[in-house]
């Protein structure tokens, strides 16, 4: 049997399978439980590299002007934004809380929380761009297919400042995979943003289970670090001033 014939059989199987009807009737029913704490398997994936992407001239300009101290939200204890939160491979855990009607992804670090609505809704019209975007998910067998719109252009895709527009479309496929005898969470991302990229960006991320990882108290700790850094700088300045003012005991 050639390929088209096979496909007909698969389609038939899917259509006749009682499950097909159930999946359609109850889009909320999930076949897989993704819940738990996971850490990025940075050793198994490669980062986004501008040299590998089909940049438009607008993207080249944006990269040329990028200054991380001004345009990287994380330098201000602000969130990564979607999909940078999912693409990031730094060893910060993420936590998935799964219910039939919503899959919630809590990222450690800066307060990114993605809500993936799996209750059968579609994207509202006239969404206001936000840091997390608006995500709607459907189960395709054992794969959670997530479509996200309205991610603010103030977020970037990578530490190097790869830009994106408000009209970027993101499609992800979240599923459990076996990889070198490990059971991993795989997220395939397809990013379509013709303003900055002539071809869709295809990326893949893998995550390992980390049941004992502790989620930190994200933006608060980031701000506390800045406060402590400020105190240290203040102390250094007081020390310098005192030494210059002739307090010799400080010169030792």
């Amino acid at each position: 049997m050639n390929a088209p014939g096979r496909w007909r059989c698969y389609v038939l199987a899917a259509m006749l399978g009682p499950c097909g009807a159930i999946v359609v009737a109850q889009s909320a029913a999930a076949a897989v439980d993704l819940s738990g704490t996971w850490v990025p398997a940075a050793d198994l994936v490669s980062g986004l590299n501008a040299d590998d992407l089909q940049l438009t001239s607008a993207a080249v300009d944006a990269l040329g002007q990028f200054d991380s101290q001004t345009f990287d939200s994380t330098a201000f204890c602000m969130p990564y934004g979607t999909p940078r939160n999912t693409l990031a491979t730094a060893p910060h855990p993420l936590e998935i809380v799964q219910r039939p009607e919503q899959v919630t992804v809590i990222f450690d670090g800066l307060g990114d929380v993605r809500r993936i609505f799996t209750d059968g809704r579609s994207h509202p019209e006239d969404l206001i761009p936000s840091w997390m975007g608006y995500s709607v998910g459907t189960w395709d067998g054992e794969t959670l297919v997530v479509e996200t719109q309205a991610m603010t252009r103030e977020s970037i895709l990578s530490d190097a400042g790869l830009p994106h527009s408000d009209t970027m479309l993101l499609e992800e496929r979240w599923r459990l995979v076996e990889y070198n005898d490990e059971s991993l969470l795989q997220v395939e991302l397809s990013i379509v943003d013709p303003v900055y990229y002539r071809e869709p960006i295809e990326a893949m991320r893998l995550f390992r289970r980390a049941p004992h990882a502790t989620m930190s108290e994200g933006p608060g700790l980031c701000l506390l670090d800045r406060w402590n850094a400020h105190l240290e700088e203040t102390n250094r300045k007081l020390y310098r001033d005192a030494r210059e003012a002739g307090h010799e005991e400080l010169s030792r």
Partner: protein
Amino acid sequence: MTSAKGGCPRRSYLHLLATVLGCLPISMSSADDAPVDFTGIWMPTQIGPDGERNEVFPEALPFLPEVQTRNEEFLADFKHEVDDSRRSCLPYGMPRQMLTVAQYPTEIIQTEDRITILVELHNDVRRIYMDGRAPPDGLRPTWMGYSVGRWEGQSLVVTTTDIREHGLPRPQSRELTLQERFTLIEGQAGPMIELEITHEDPRIYSRPFTLKTYYRQYEGLEMGEYFCNEDVWRLNLDGNPSELPWR
């Protein structure tokens, strides 16, 4: 087609079988076992179930005399504009963010062995473990503390310890233990959560006491994004770097 009579390959029958098996729903919600499901988006309210105004702090708190004196000295020199931790974008911490009546929603997500509370204000996350564990020894105190919960009849009872000590808006020590009782009730405005929070902190208070607040639902209420530092980020984008040293 090379084998018109061949029928479908075995793989497609296996595929069908797998599809059917894969379709059997996996129970991953604790709603089946728990007596009450608090899942939903809730808004704190000052209006009680009977439509009357609820005073979260009906009377003076039973501070130890020496704490009362020092607290008054502290507050005499206190400037809300600069000294209140909320100006610094730091979390409110427990129990403040559960007692505030500021109009920011709170999402409760109930799953097997866990109840997760996402607070829009300051973007805080609480994790309440329902699997019978005790708080581990030697925890570093955190703003949210460490919460374990259990069911008592129709009520969810949560014990929280290991909370960071801080002085605002009320002093609290690391010995603070909170016991929260969440009860689903029917009020004039529809389903409500009655939340009673019993405070026990022998270094601060002369006796335990209980405060009560309420949450209600609104049609169409959604969780928004609260990134406290966004004002500073935006000022900086406009060429006005923050002069606040901590932000």
